[in-house]
């Protein structure tokens, strides 16, 4: 008997719905890449799996249940597939650059300036305006490229790499070919920053790790910075655009933000909770164990549905409702556990800066087409509209 397919979001039918309900009973599903896995969809279960890297390994890769190019049995390349102390060692080289409270205070003015320039360009443009490409992606690309010191002439390298890596149908050969130009560029950048450090993240990583017991290798530096560049703009841009569709389409929510742009901070948490990680994350059991009473055997794959878990009534009794003034709780929209999103603090800052600035400077913002006419990305793990035509006058 064949297994039911892993439920996936269907934004073109139900724009904001999770792939399925949060249920405490585990089911066996067939994933798009052919893997069979246990599907965990309730908040407690998702948190338990992601929070226990000892029982549930990240070695197969975070999205190898969706992405054709990734082989869950291959030797891990890169920190996102490491477990335990090896992974923590790498994470601690990221953290001072992107998740240290004092460092974030330094980044705020840069993000505000890039956002303000983008809004000024937007307001000088004809309507309807292509918000996703000309605003959301422009802002998030400029932020991460500026932080790592990638000049505008090279921005296409991260765009091409992200397009290839997040597309479910990309083959392993196609992915290698798409990543190569970015990797070649980053190896050159590592060499030049080692010789002549600047104030960018790559230079700071080199300088800080030099005093470590095991300084970062060139390959590790390239892996880490490629991850920041690739994951750092497309996910955040998609959340800005997708989040704005939800805000503008839910009666009263945009008006609340316009009336009080300070709500951008809780609104950011709420949008990430409501819309994040619809295609789920993959883990593999390291030992015979149980989740929610279900026996899991060592070697079994487990897919956790983050978005369904975030809509669980166990998290909020009215978890199905989008409420931007909700007191932020412990949602899992940035994941949970040791592999929780590396860039989550920068992403938060970009999202709340953009939301507050748009609500202040473009209070009459509206979607310029019926929501039913929005074209949605399909063969990807980074969900949201392909494009969003907007108007304001």
């Amino acid at each position: 008997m064949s297994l039911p397919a892993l439920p996936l979001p269907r934004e073109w039918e139900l724009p904001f719905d999770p792939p399925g309900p949060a249920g405490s009973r585990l089911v066996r599903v067939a994933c798009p890449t052919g893997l069979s896995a246990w599907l965990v969809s309730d908040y407690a279960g998702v948190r338990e799996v992601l929070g226990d890297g000892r029982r549930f390994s990240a070695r197969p890769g975070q999205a190898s249940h969706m992405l054709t190019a990734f082989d869950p049995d291959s030797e891990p390349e890169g920190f996102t597939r490491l477990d335990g102390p090896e992974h923590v060692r790498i994470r601690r080289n990221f953290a001072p650059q992107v998740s240290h409270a004092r460092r974030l205070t330094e980044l705020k003015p840069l993000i505000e300036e890039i956002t303000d320039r983008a809004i000024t360009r937007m307001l000088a443009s004809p309507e309807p305006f292509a918000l996703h490409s000309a605003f959301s992606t422009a802002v998030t690309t400029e932020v991460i490229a500026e932080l790592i010191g990638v000049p505008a002439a090279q921005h296409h390298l991260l765009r091409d790499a992200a397009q290839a890596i997040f597309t479910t149908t990309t083959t392993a050969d196609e992915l290698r070919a798409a990543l190569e130009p970015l990797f070649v560029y980053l190896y050159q950048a590592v060499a030049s920053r080692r010789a002549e450090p600047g104030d960018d993240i790559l230079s700071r990583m080199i300088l800080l790790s030099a005093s470590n017991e095991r300084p970062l290798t060139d390959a590790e530096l390239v892996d880490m910075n490629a991850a920041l560049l690739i994951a750092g703009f497309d996910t955040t841009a998609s959340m800005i655009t997708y989040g704005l569709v939800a805000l503008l389409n839910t009666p009263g929510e945009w008006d609340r933000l316009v009336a009080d742009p300070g709500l951008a901070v809780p609104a950011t948490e709420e949008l990430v909770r409501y819309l994040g990680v619809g295609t789920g994350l993959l883990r593999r059991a390291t030992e015979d164990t149980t989740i929610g009473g279900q026996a899991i055997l060592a070697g079994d794959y487990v897919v956790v549905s983050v978005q369904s878990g975030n809509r669980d009534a166990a998290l909020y009794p009215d978890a199905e409702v989008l409420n931007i003034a909700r007191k932020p709780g412990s949602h899992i929209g940035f994941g949970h556990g040791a592999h929780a999103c590396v860039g989550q603090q920068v992403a938060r800052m970009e999202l709340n800066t953009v939301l507050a600035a748009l609500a202040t400077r473009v209070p009459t913002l509206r979607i310029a087409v019926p929501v039913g006419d929005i074209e949605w990305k399909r063969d990807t793990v980074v969900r949201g509209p392909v494009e969003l035509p907007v108007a304001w006058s």
Partner: protein
Amino acid sequence: MRVTVDRDRCIGAGNCALIAPAVFDQEPDDAVVVLLDETPPEDSRPAVQEAVDRCPAAVIVLAAG
């Protein structure tokens, strides 16, 4: 209330230092949590509890006493 942290497993995500800066700081070199106050005043309990709940690596423990 008594707070303890497991620095060996900390990933430096920064949530605790952003939520309860009077209780948690971070090392400059690796952003690992620094516990500023092991027995914070009772009025900081909501913030400390939020830091516990939102620590992705679950390295903060809050005990009575």
